């Protein structure tokens, strides 16, 4: 004879709807409750409902994105290189290395110009941050950070301080002092705190505010004196690798680029993302505004540089060549915005005609990746830093 199983039907008040029904035991968070059959069915359906919601949200987002692309395309009636046919072509281009700065014992990762048009600050993998008078090639200050891979450095507008950071997840400000008795590291101020590496930093219009970008996917605005977080910017889906402040009259926006292949334009006041562009096929290593502030260029691991117009709200030019297969690490415009200088991971610098979309020149010289590139404040030269431990000033 086999055992028989009995189903015991308990009648009582349902723990959810409180109606008098036949009850079934259910376990919610290790607690046993008694639900009626209706409530059990509803509970089971709810779980399903949440999954459906995620999927439906995803498809809604996707369809809206494609509609947005359609809207953007509607107003695109002409290409930049077509409009630029009227512009005179550029002649032969000769730029040479005019200064070579040797002194870093390891890969140079970042550099920035001082407003005096000749001093620069550079940082390297071994933690050294050096301030040079690049005209005379003299080193004026040197400080060793307590971390390696100092991927970001910036010169303060007044020329009296520098900021830097990297794998220490922080951005620190060092006032520059010529006092031989003072150790620069002693007056160091820790300003920004992120939860992952610091990839970029920049002072705003004064020495008292710093904007940072980090591998934790966020950008942030800080008060230097107190280290207080003034505003944070969330929206990137992966590491943020670069940022640039807009040269606008109102000084309110900046653009950032990240590993999620997106370039996003932010309102510094509200922390909101104003515009977003996603046409690159790989990480965006560098973003830089066009001198008028109406557009910006980006350089990416997909070996292309692209120009995005903010008023047209779309990508308007791609700078690429079949023979260029290594990623662009750093981009900057010449003063008039006619030339785009881009440093690549294949050790070269390519010079692009921004309007016509063609490559004007290729510059050889570095013996390893070009990691950073900035045009001087008065546009007389540009400086490139490389993993070959040197910086070069070209004019």
């Amino acid at each position, binding site marked *: 004879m086999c055992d028989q199983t009995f189903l015991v039907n308990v009648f009582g008040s349902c723990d959810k709807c409180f109606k008098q029904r036949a009850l079934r035991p259910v376990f919610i968070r290790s607690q046993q409750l008694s639900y009626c059959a209706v409530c059990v069915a509803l509970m089971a359906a709810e779980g399903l409902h949440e999954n459906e919601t995620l999927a439906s949200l995803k498809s809604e987002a996707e369809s809206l994105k494609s509609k947005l692309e359609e809207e953007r395309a509607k107003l695109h009636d002409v290409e930049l290189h077509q*409009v630029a046919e009227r512009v005179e072509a550029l002649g032969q281009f000769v730029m040479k290395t*005019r200064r070579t700065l040797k002194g870093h014992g390891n890969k140079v990762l970042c550099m920035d110009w001082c407003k005096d048009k000749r001093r620069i600050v550079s940082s390297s993998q071994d933690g050294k941050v050096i301030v040079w008078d690049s005209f005379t090639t003299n080193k004026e200050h040197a400080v060793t950070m307590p971390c390696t891979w100092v991927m970001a450095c910036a010169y303060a507008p007044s020329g009296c301080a520098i900021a830097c950071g990297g794998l220490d997840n922080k951005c620190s400000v060092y006032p520059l002092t010529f006092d031989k008795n003072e150790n620069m590291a002693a007056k160091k101020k820790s300003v920004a705190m992120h939860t992952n590496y610091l990839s970029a930093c920049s002072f705003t219009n004064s020495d008292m505010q710093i904007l940072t970008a980090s591998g934790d996917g966020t950008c942030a605005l800080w008060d230097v004196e107190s280290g207080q977080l003034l505003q944070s910017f969330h929206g990137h889906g992966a590491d943020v690798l670069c940022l640039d402040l807009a040269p606008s009259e109102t000084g309110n926006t900046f653009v950032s680029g990240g590993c999620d292949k997106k370039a996003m334009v932010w309102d510094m006041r509200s922390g909101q993302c104003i515009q977003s562009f996603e046409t690159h096929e790989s990480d965006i290593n560098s973003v830089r505004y066009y001198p008028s502030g109406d557009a910006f260029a980006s350089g990416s691991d997909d070996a292309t540089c692209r120009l995005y117009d903010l008023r047209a709200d779309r990508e308007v030019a791609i700078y690429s060549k079949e023979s260029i297969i290594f990623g662009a690490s750093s981009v900057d415009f*010449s003063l*008039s915005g*006619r030339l785009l200088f881009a440093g690549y991971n294949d050790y070269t610098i390519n010079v692009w005609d921004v309007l016509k979309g063609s490559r004007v020149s290729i510059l050889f010289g570095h013996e390893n990746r070009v990691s950073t590139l900035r045009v001087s404040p008065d546009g*007389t030269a540009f400086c490139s830093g490389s993993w070959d431990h040197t910086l070069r000033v070209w004019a």
Partner: protein
Amino acid sequence: MTINTLHQAGSYKVQMPCLSKMERVIVGMQDPDMGVKMRNQRLLITVIPHAMTGSDIVEWLIQKFSISEEESLHLGNLIVKHGYIYPLKDPRCLVLRADDSPYRFQTPYFWMSTKWPAAELDYAIYLAKKNIQKQGDLIDHEKDYYNQLHKKINHTWDFVVMQAREQLRAAKQRRKGDRIVIECQEQTYWLVNRPPPGALNVMEQGPERGNCYTTRVQMTKNMDFYKREIEYCKKAMGRTRVKSSICLEAYLKFNEQYMPHDPIMSGCLPSNPWITDDTDYWSMNAPTVAIPTKLRVERWAFNFRELMGDPLGHIQFMEFLKKEFSAENLSFWEACEDLRYGEQSKIAESVDAVYQQFLAPGATRWVNIDSKTMEKTLEGIRRPHRYVMDDAQMHIYMLMKKDSYPRFLKSDIYKTLLAEAVIPPETKKRVFPFMRKQRHSSPSPALLLPSEQEPKGEDKGKNLTSGPSPGEEQS
């Protein structure tokens, strides 16, 4: 290869898109019709098939990409350095020579995207093979690695030696030609993956990036992420966009206006300091110089931002406003800028100072703002924050831009400046051009005392004399 390695290799390929692009080039080079000319290469007595010369490679790249020989050689060199092509003569040196040196394609088995990262075990076997074959054939750094590995994976050392012996035995059974080829292929692979100290390591990457491919747990793509995306898209749909034809025209106009001012494009007078080592250009364009250059004064007429952005232009504009009795507008704007970019702890103090000086009824330098903005600002002052003056500041900025600025450009002050502005003569070419001119250093901005820096406050004219200020180089 374990599955784990496969996955890592896969993600590596995605992380380095240059590898797939290089492979496409390699495949193109191997095309029987359009690829590089292949021939049999004689290496002493052995004949090795499917070899090509360095110059053929360079030539093919020139034809395929329409590039110069220099660029083609550079690109070819990178392909060789990544181990996709290896030299038959002098195989330890991964360099492309544009002559008749023979080269061969690496087998896909050893491609960087297939077999990376190189396994320690495989390297141990390789070194053991070399060691057994010819005693003491290991080069210094290889000897070090060998000893290191011997210690590290001592427990599997028997396996390593056994594998090495097996592979050598199997190799003996091959034809000499094949044996040489396989040896070269393997050597190339290890040259790329374990470069000798001091040599370029092409596979070196920076700190790991958490991009979409390496993040296995995609925490961000949850409901909030999509909700934000939807909200952003909805907002973006409604924004006003400008037609491309109009936007792009703006670039042409900007280019035309600024081209003569771009030192890299149009040169600069007297000369580019970086090229001639002569710093006259900098001293003539110092922030506060007595007589500005013509180009500089012309630039102030481009737009209001140019005028405001140049310290000298800013001062001249202030002088003009004083004549028009509206200097308080500029002073108010400056005070608001100081507030916006000032220290967090001083905000309440700054707001109050601005209010007292410019906005309070009966203030000494009262600015004329429309009533609505004034009301809103006064309301905001009750809870002061750094952006509380934004509306008022914008109102005054637009007032100056639309009203005072055009009048400034027509004023005598501006006209005189333009007339008296200098066009520097071009630096005469030096008689002895090979003698380098002495490069003068300049005082660091960090040496200047704060009061000598960009003057703050209302009267920017106060601190400045007619000559260059104390910190600047004397011309």
